[in-house]
């Protein structure tokens, strides 16, 4: 398909609309198909009206407040961490920046168990604390990204006019929307989390969350009832995402092509460095350290010293869990690759649409598979694909790849859209004037320019596909997976095997980021202010 030439500055939607629509439809077909059996109930007002019941209303409001608290903690921890990692001149800042996304890749329950193992903490406040830590990398990453794109001129003017204090204030102004956006994403993830709340609410201070109410309906195999019960959560999550995307469109005067310099804080560098290390320790080093320690704890596996027990636990994990981890990696790779094919067109579309309600609405529509409960999504996939029409596809290894790609492609779309949006339009417009088709421009020019981000988008889907438990239980081709093995063993004890297998999974989850860092290379230390 050829592009019609567009005059500079004309909205891109005027050309290439047909192939854009086809690409978008392909994504919606893959991602929305499993939603179809539950969609009417999911978007119905029936579920909302059930909130009239006092018990459900109180539960729902408390869950929303709980998610807001987690978002606040995530922002309070994540925003300074992102600022220190991205813009403070100190030794090891690049390493800190590289570590930022890693906690996001760990299953929240793993972090929760580590903190519980360390401190014996319980109850709602502990769940809040842990979920806040789990999702702190979201504001941290977004703040780091926003500050990396802060205009050099604005930064230097602030340094000249008001020294470090004004420069920091300018950074805070620049990072505020990103911190809010990150907090809102933490809110969304917390809203639908069931495992961590269930774990900390198990004994001690009693509390439960609305997602448990949703779960009780799936338990009765009443998938429409489950979707109806989930409707208020999905509606709230959709509304929050809509306004978050609108807020994220705010122009804060950034967008410089080159990264502004890091800021020296004088003696304050020590404080910033200490704070950065303390925060990354809380969100990553302590939980992982605890898991590694547990690999050699006293238990039924191995004899002798810690090291011998740990070695025995890793050998046991490799023997019993290795094949499952291998299958999870293959499924995740297929899902990631599919997402890399599916994500560019909607990402391009989102990047090129004018900021506003229409774009935010499209964002919410793309994100819907992610906002819907995983169990409902999995049951929907069974109802849609377990038909003669699909032959053996239902039991093949391709089905989980397709379903997992459908559920997690929104993550790839948002990441890629943000990166594509940062690219200048001039190259695209020149290609259009030269008569190059828009698919060719997208694949050969724009994606080539953002290859690390494109790979990262696929890697992100790979990671979330490996982490996914609910769909792995429900989809035949995904059942013999690392997640099912891990949670199955966890039922009995947090023994050496569980710790070693958890550490192995964490290492695999970190791999895509490590590879991406290898492709991109560590950024050299920037010049001083």
């Amino acid at each position: 398909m050829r592009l019609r030439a567009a005059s500079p500055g004309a909205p891109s939607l005027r050309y290439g609309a047909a192939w854009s629509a086809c690409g978008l439809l392909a994504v919606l077909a893959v991602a929305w198909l499993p939603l179809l059996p539950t969609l009417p109930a999911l978007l119905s007002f029936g579920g909302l009206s059930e909130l009239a019941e006092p018990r459900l209303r109180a539960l729902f409001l408390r869950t929303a407040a709980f998610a807001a608290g987690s978002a606040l903690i995530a922002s309070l921890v994540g925003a300074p961490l992102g600022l220190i990692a991205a813009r403070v001149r100190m030794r090891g800042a690049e390493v800190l920046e590289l570590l930022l996304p890693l906690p996001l890749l760990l299953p929240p329950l793993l972090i929760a168990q580590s903190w519980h193992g360390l401190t014996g903490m319980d109850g709602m406040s502990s769940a809040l604390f842990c979920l806040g830590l789990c999702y702190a990398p979201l504001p941290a990453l977004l703040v780091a990204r926003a500050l990396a794109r802060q205009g050099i001129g604005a930064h230097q003017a602030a340094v000249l006019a008001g020294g470090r204090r004004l420069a920091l204030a300018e950074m805070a102004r620049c990072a505020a929307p990103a911190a809010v956006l990150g907090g809102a994403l933490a809110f969304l993830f917390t809203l639908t989390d069931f495992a961590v709340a269930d774990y900390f609410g198990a004994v001690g201070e009693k509390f439960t969350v609305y997602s448990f109410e949703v779960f009780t309906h799936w338990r009765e195999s009443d998938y429409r009832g489950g979707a109806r019960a989930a409707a208020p959560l999905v509606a709230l999550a959709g509304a929050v995402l809509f306004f978050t995307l609108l807020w994220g469109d705010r122009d804060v005067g950034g967008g410089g092509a080159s990264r502004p310099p890091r800021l020296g804080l004088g003696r304050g560098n020590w404080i910033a460095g200490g704070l950065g290390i303390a925060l990354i320790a809380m969100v990553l080093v302590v939980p992982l350290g605890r898991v590694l320690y547990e690999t050699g704890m006293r238990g039924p596996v191995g004899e002798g010293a810690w090291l011998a027990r740990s070695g025995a636990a890793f050998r046991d994990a490799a023997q019993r869990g290795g094949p499952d981890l291998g299958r999870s990696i293959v499924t995740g790779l297929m899902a990631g690759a599919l997402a890399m094919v599916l994500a560019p067109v909607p990402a391009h579309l989102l990047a090129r649409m004018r900021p506003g309600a229409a774009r935010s609405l499209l964002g919410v529509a793309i994100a819907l598979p992610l906002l819907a409960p995983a169990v409902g999504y999995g049951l929907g996939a069974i109802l849609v694909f377990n038909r003669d029409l699909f032959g053996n596809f239902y039991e093949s290894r391709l089905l989980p790849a397709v379903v997992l790609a459908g559920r997690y492609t929104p993550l790839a779309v948002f990441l890629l859209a943000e990166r594509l949006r940062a690219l200048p339009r001039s190259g695209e417009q020149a290609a259009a004037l030269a008569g190059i088709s828009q698919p060719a421009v997208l694949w050969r020019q724009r994606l080539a320019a953002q290859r690390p981000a494109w790979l990262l988008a696929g890697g992100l889907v790979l990671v979330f596909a490996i982490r996914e438990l609910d769909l792995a239980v429900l989809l035949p081709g995904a059942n013999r997976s690392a997640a099912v093995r891990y949670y199955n063993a966890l039922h009995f004890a947090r023994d050496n095997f569980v710790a070693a297998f958890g550490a192995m999974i964490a290492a695999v989850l970190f791999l895509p980021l490590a590879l991406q860092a290898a492709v991109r290379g560590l950024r050299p230390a920037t010049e001083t202010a």
Partner: protein
Amino acid sequence: MRSPSAPAILACVLLAGLAACGRQADLVVYCSLDREHSERILALFEERTGLKVEGQFDVERNKTVGMVNRIIAERDRPRADVYWNNEIAQTIRLKDLGLTQPYFSESARGIPEDFRDPDHHWTGFAARARVILYRVDLLPAGTRPPQRLDDLADPAFAKSGAMAQPLTGTTLTHFTVLSEQRGAAAVLDWLERAKAAGLSFGGGNADVMRRVCEGDFVWCLTDTDDAAVARRNGNPVATLHLDQEAGGAGTLLIPNTVCMIAGARHPDAARKFLDFVLSPEVEALLAASRSEQVPLHPGVVTPPEVGLPDRDFRAMKVDWPAAAALLKDRAEAFAEVFVR
């Protein structure tokens, strides 16, 4: 370097998918018993018969109802041949939904009739007992853990103990059975009294077991498989069977159950599997495993740690179909008490 094209990536995905496909299974078993214990039984069956078995497993985190949900969702085109449930109520529910088919296995002879469906749709085997797990080192000198279920709601015991919320799994089954025997209102009243007395309610049996191991509680009500893991992991714990006094109700035994799915694609292999899994040999293997399941066949040789009904404790008499019929209603009623 040019970016790879979409068709190239798709071709890679398809190739990877095809490469990942292996030989089709001769038998598909959906299994809710923990994979750690059931996997070796499936492997042994494969070894004995040469049949390829596809095992699909559940997890405790979703309260082990994933396989039941799947069987119901797949009802128009069943994929499972056999369902091996780690409890009984959901299996009876599948029968009531018309999703099972009858088969009487000769291996089931000897299993008490209480644990067999009169229509041969399901058979129970290898049970778990509901017991008190307690820390021997934390129990104050001269005191005893609760001996009767009603002791759990006594403030003298309640503050130092825990049990799972009766919302899922064997605890839901246990309190549904009690509702059938004592009446729904009496059980709700019992739960309210226990809460008021300070009894802690956990997310699951394994949760409360772990908290006892960590020293948060002196005792908990749990299943024998969880108790066995606590002991095998080196914790200073012991178990006690409830309601063993003269005239007491006895200890509830909740069996694994196995059934053949209606419309099974491999019925012959399914029957062979049922014959195998219901044999005394498999019960002995499960008794010797980390989960220490209680055999229902008489005369099965077990390790000394495994308590046997009529030898080491008295089991509760249960009308399982009547209890299973109440399950959904009781789950909703208990949710009113605990999900708030």
